[in-house]
């Protein structure tokens, strides 16, 4: 079956929307999920392989924790009277090359308040992000590489 992960997600979304587990709903959901996964396969997207599911769950929990903490940090910056903080761009050389890993990294960095994915040079594999409260560039490079890139590399490639 092509793209089992995507089919599973679509089926789950369908069941949630329908709020029922009746055989008819299940059958229709299955047909839709398989059909869309098949159509997605026609786009010739490279296959996604998740090699380490427990690590993915741990990474997800870590990202949720980071999102909560950066929410508070950014709220603090916004609410401070006249904030003295420096924002700036940081260039990070990456070793991660898997397209799904990069997409996940993009989502992680952008949905965490305070950091945003700006540009990725696929030739040199250098990522540029913008950091709202930039104190030390090397700390950010180290954080992104160690906290996110390393596990993503183990999960996807």
């Amino acid at each position: 079956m092509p793209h089992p992960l995507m089919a599973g997600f679509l089926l789950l979304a369908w069941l949630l929307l329908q709020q029922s587990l009746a055989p008819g709903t299940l059958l229709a959901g299955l047909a839709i999920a398989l059909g869309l996964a098949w159509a997605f396969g026609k786009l010739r997207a490279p296959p996604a392989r998740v090699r380490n599911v427990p690590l993915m769950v741990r990474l997800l929990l870590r990202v949720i924790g980071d999102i909560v903490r950066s929410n508070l940090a950014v709220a603090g910056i916004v609410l401070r009277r006249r904030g003295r903080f420096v924002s700036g761009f940081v260039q990070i050389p990456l070793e991660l090359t898997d397209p799904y890993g990069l997409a996940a990294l993009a989502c992680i960095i952008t949905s965490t308040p305070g950091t945003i994915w700006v540009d990725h040079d696929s030739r040199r594999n250098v990522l540029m992000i913008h950091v709202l409260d930039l104190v030390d560039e090397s700390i950010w490079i180290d954080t992104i590489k160690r906290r996110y890139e390393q596990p993503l590399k183990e999960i996807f490639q």
Partner: protein
Amino acid sequence: MNHLDGLPPWAAVLVGVLVLLGAGFAFIGSLGLVRLRDFYKRVHAPTLGSTLGTFFMVAASVVCFSILQGRPVLPVILIGVFLTLTTPITLMLLVRAALYRHRVEDGRQMPPR
């Protein structure tokens, strides 16, 4: 305030606190849009509304309607899932458009700080 009367007091308080927290984060995010100075700083602010703001709102509606209807009401969680998946894409699109403009107008690879 009609059907909310069906909520027991503890649930009403819980839902109220969750809604206020969600609204608070969304508000601080919007305030950031006004208070931060330049484009690249501003794009950071709305993520507050799309992460914790959304989370508390979704939690409030799950609690509220699950209790009112006496069974778990989960479809609202999908709102959170889709927002989490789509907001980064919009933000990246905006930032990349700004960067492209900077590069064309200033002729530099890195935009000014």
